[in-house]
């Protein structure tokens, strides 16, 4: 399972997006607002989940801002951090 697929599964199960399946999530849809419909407190939850499942602590919130644009952006961020580790 690649990072994007793993992320989608985490979003659906841990953020309780019960109305969606991982397959229905668009890789490039915005995570917040009109895309997946997550709100700002979900961003807090997402930071925690990324640390829990990938061991990556998003300390620099400017990086987080870029990473949280979409599932594919977040996956790219995670992959880059893992590669640099």
């Amino acid at each position, binding site marked *: 399972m690649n990072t994007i697929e793993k992320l989608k599964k985490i979003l659906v199960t841990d953020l309780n997006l019960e109305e969606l399946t991982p397959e229905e999530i668009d890789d490039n849809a915005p995570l917040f607002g009109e895309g997946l419909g997550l709100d*700002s*407190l979900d961003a*807090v939850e997402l930071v925690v989940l990324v640390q829990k499942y990938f061991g990556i602590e998003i300390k620099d*919130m400017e990086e987080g801002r870029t990473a949280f644009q979409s599932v594919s952006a977040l996956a790219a961020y995670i992959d880059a951090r893992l590669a640099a580790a």
Partner: protein
Amino acid sequence: MSNEQKQWSSKSIGSNWQHQIFYILIRSGGKQLAYLLLFFVVLYYVLFRPSVRNRSSYYLKRRFPGRNSLFMLWDSYLLSLGIGLTLVDRAILGISGVENLDVSLEGREILVNLLAEGRGLILVTAHVGCWQLAMSSLSALDTEVNLLIHREEGDLDRHFFEHAGEKPPYRIIDPAGYLGGALEMLQVLKNGKLLCIMGDRVMGAEGSTISVDFLGAPVKLPFSPYKLASATGAPLAVIFPYRTDSGGYALKVAKIIRVPENLGRSANGYLPFAREFVTALEQFVTEHPYQFYNFYNMWEKTD
């Protein structure tokens, strides 16, 4: 934040020139003249501006149920005088300096010890007393203070540091910013710093509220402080600043709340902690009935 949710306004009563009169009095004649003028100004507003009485009544009817109209008028005067005093004192702090007001921090050691845990510290307060004076007393903690606050365009009130043309002694996080400032708040806590949030008004994201009984009826309050505490493991302290009988100010640590980690996304998981906050707030308004300054119907829209 949706307009539907936001029922309060930070805009002040009175025009710019009326505010300036107070500032001139403080600069030239000292604070006693400003206080003297305030008694008459408040009397005028309470007697001749029904909107002032109306805005006071939402809280007063809950705090003093069954009061007759004469007592309600007196309560409205005392409540309006209370906020007037804090506004004058805030201007005094900015114009004349903190040495002209007695400001104390009760429970400093408790806060220092909580900060020493290294997971940041969330201070949850409310629109009581004069929170800006409270913020000034937090400088005694020798750490960066961050405050989640929204300021409206056209707000005539100056923050106390603006009177002196100084930079703010705390860092402001704007809830109207990216993701309601959630990532900034998270970063503050991850860096082990101090984060202050108003627990009695919704300033953050849409949908991030929880219904809790306050003074006998449900209100919607933000649960973001408790969620942040759960996500980061940061301890949470409920603090209330208040005006003392001697005309000084004190900041009291009312309650320490420990939120278990990883409570998740559901708002209901945070209900017990929001209730703890409300219990502390109810205790505060019992002790200081004329120092609660939410002049809107916070009980209006609930599920």
